[in-house]
């Protein structure tokens, strides 16, 4: 990637993070901003440092994870429509988290995260198994869409039958995603599996590039493809699981982010990973900002904002991809 593009991406990320810190529901006066920076303990400082900053950072972390996971899945499956949300990995992570909550384990440290992780891994393994069986890219996407609906339906079902009835709002939180009211502890808890997953995905980069040439050529390339492939699936599932445990199911970021930076990375699925993570972080921080500052009676859900932008994009990518599949 060129230096200009790197600087541009980095600059944009800093810009949206700053905006996430400075803008919000409550409008502060310049004097209050001054106070907040001089005295972090003041009421204005509280708003900036304990409400807005962790929220913006959480959005960036989750967007980055989903952007990276999406890029890894697209490379692995050689499919421009792949994304943790589209393939049902997010929905099953949500299902895993919902199960742990319904079983009354939400107070146990790490239980919800573990549940989401297990769900994401199961869906990830299922999807990569199906990918080996169904060579047609459209078939895999259709299977993913059905997995995704199934996961969402089962999650709603669990909340319906849960012994301690959960409010509908709580269910919507899980199904539509939100990063409101997060603190630094939440960020740290998400950071561990995110870092691990990112490491695995980045390690698999060489294999993702080689897979451009197809399964057989990659298998004979001399790279340890079996391990690289497993690393990509496990890494993407870890990041998706962590993202869902922390913020519910946020769709389309993993789909959109890789496409925004694909040309910048020379179309190389291995070199695309980090730019895609940064693009995902920018996208989700911006989306969260929109959900906060849009004047509305009740705050817009993050997943709604990303879907409003992401769903048309998905259609556009599908339309363009279907032409190249036919050729």
């Amino acid at each position, binding site marked *: 990637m060129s230096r200009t593009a790197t600087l541009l991406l980095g600059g944009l990320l800093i810009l949206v993070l700053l905006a996430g810190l400075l803008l919000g529901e409550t409008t502060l006066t310049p004097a209050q901003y001054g106070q907040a920076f001089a005295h972090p303990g003041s009421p204005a400082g509280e708003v900036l440092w304990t409400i807005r900053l962790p929220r913006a950072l959480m959005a960036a972390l989750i967007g980055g994870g989903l952007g990276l996971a999406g890029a890894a899945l697209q490379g692995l499956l*050689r499919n421009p429509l792949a994304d943790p949300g589209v393939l049902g990995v997010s929905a099953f992570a949500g299902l895993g988290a919902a199960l742990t909550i319904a079983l009354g384990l939400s107070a146990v440290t790490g239980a919800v995260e573990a549940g989401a992780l297990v769900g994401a891994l199961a869906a990830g393994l299922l999807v990569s198994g199906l990918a080996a069986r169904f060579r047609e890219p459209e078939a895999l996407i259709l299977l993913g869409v059905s997995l995704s609906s199934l996961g969402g339906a089962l999650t709603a079902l669990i909340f319906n039958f849960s012994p301690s009835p959960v409010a509908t709002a709580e269910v919507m939180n899980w199904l539509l995603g939100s990063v409101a009211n997060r603190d630094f502890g939440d960020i740290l808890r998400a950071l561990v599996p995110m870092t691990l997953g990112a490491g695995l995905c980045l390690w698999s980069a060489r294999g993702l*590039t080689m897979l*451009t040439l*197809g399964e057989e050529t990659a298998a*004979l*390339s001399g790279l340890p493809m079996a391990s690289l492939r497993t690393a990509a699936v496990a890494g993407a599932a870890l990041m998706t699981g962590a993202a869902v445990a922390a913020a519910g199911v946020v769709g389309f970021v993993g789909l959109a982010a890789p496409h925004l930076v694909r040309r910048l990375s*020379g179309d190389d*699925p291995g070199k695309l990973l980090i730019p895609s993570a940064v693009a995902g972080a920018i996208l989700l921080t911006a989306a969260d900002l929109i959900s906060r500052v849009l004047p509305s009676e009740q705050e817009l859900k993050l997943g709604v904002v990303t879907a409003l932008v992401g769903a048309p994009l998905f259609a556009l990518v599908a339309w363009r991809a279907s032409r*190249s599949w036919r050729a």
Partner: protein
Amino acid sequence: MSWVFTDVHAGPAGRAVLKGVSLTVAPGEMVGVLGPNGAGKTTLLRAGLGLLPLQAGQVQLADKPIAELKPAMRARAAGYLPQERRVGWNLAALRIAELGAPDLPEGQAQALAAACLARVGLEGFEGRGVLDLSGGERARVLLARLLATRAPLLVADEPTAGLDPDAQFLALDLLAQEAARGAGVVLTLHDLALAARVCSRLVVLHDGRVAADGAPREVLTPATLRTVFGLDGAFIDTEDGPVLVTRRAP
């Protein structure tokens, strides 16, 4: 370093496509594998490279059973150009050719890739995206990647499919050059006359078995042409050497 098939039975999803094939490919040979559709040509290559499990028999590459070779060793021993030419992403031609040499440091791999692109006649195409190229140009980029593997055994499944006549000769000449330098070259072909001209040895597969094996003129006899391919044909001597002419058997 030879590629040795001993009584190999193999086929995708448990089907018996190869029914006992024995064959040895020596360094410096240019072996054309011929046969009608479904005779087992691609299965032979895939089983021989360990991409397909063997149902019975044995394949040896680099003096070891193929299943025992580690990925890196297998890549050093053999390069493969599959029939499937779908490329997933629009990488630059140079980058695709470079993927033939993942074992080299980046600078060296790039220089090698550029040299291989020049050999297939694509000088000046280095920065072009493969999906923006024509089908024939893309096939040549993939051939450049095969050359970049520098493997002592080069295996190509229908390397001439979809190429114009000039590019077909170019591709086969390049493979012949590799054979002349001591590499074993194995390729599948459908054009019998072309195969007879460029290969030092032909192997005819028929219904999963070797129907004939040897020098082109010994292999493509009227009897073999008739029983395996359903063709009438013969070699005609010309100033340019013998040429095979065929037509559908009445």
